């Protein structure tokens, strides 16, 4: 197996585990942790594709840095949203946010 394939398989493993966590966790913070796992898998896949193929190497690394910046912005916003949900609904569980239920 080529190194690129091994790296992509590790990234797919992170994607599978993160998707599992996103769907099985019941608290918003647990879901945020799973999303971070998936974003990490994406970054790993991008850098591996940039480094192990004959494309310009700095492009893959720059794209991974973009992913990291977006992940930081996303987790900042999710922190604020979780805080507001906790204040308004009294719990940080995803089932608690069900005001529209008839």
């Amino acid at each position: 197996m080529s190194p690129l394939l091994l790296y992509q398989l590790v990234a797919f493993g992170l994607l599978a585990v993160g998707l599992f966590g996103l769907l099985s966790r019941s608290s918003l913070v647990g879901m945020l942790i799973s999303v971070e796992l998936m974003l990490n898998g994406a970054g790993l896949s991008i850098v591996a594709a940039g480094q192990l193929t004959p494309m310009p190497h700095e492009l893959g690394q720059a794209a991974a840095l973009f992913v990291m910046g977006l992940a930081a912005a996303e987790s900042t916003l999710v922190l604020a949203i979780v805080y507001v949900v906790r204040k308004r609904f009294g719990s940080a569980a995803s089932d608690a946010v069900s005001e529209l239920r008839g």
Partner: protein
Amino acid sequence: MRELVVQVSFALYAALTLGGAVWAVTAKSLVRALLGLTLSLMGVAALYVLIAAPLVALMQILIYVGAVVVLIFFAIMLTRAQAEQEEAGARDAGRTLRAGAAGLVVAGLLAAACLRHGPKIAGTAVEVPPSDIGAAFLGPYVLGFEVISVVLFAAMAGAVVLAFERRKPR
């Protein structure tokens, strides 16, 4: 000899990454889940070093382990999610099964496509100096570079606006 060292360290780091990830999604306590996430992030940073991308590995540790993990820890402490014990009770077997099936199907489809139609080319990883990455950021990708700073600012301003406690008028 060198080949063997690389293979063994790849296996070790991949096991660290995936093991930490599994711990992060299965741990009952959210603080332990965060520790699993940290392990996984460190494993990914080591994998970056292995393909000659030390700058990305350093940024991974700086941004993820240094900032994002601390932010999530703040979120856990602010919401007192652990004290509520909400992860402990609500373990529905059917839900876990469906979630596992969804994750395996999506990643399995992608992995099958990658195994069958993946590129057969194999380049060797060459370390690029950080000045090249900086030139890429400030040369052809300067728009993205500037937009991401706007995105970061908007996210921070949005967080402040959301969490700001307005004093009630009497």
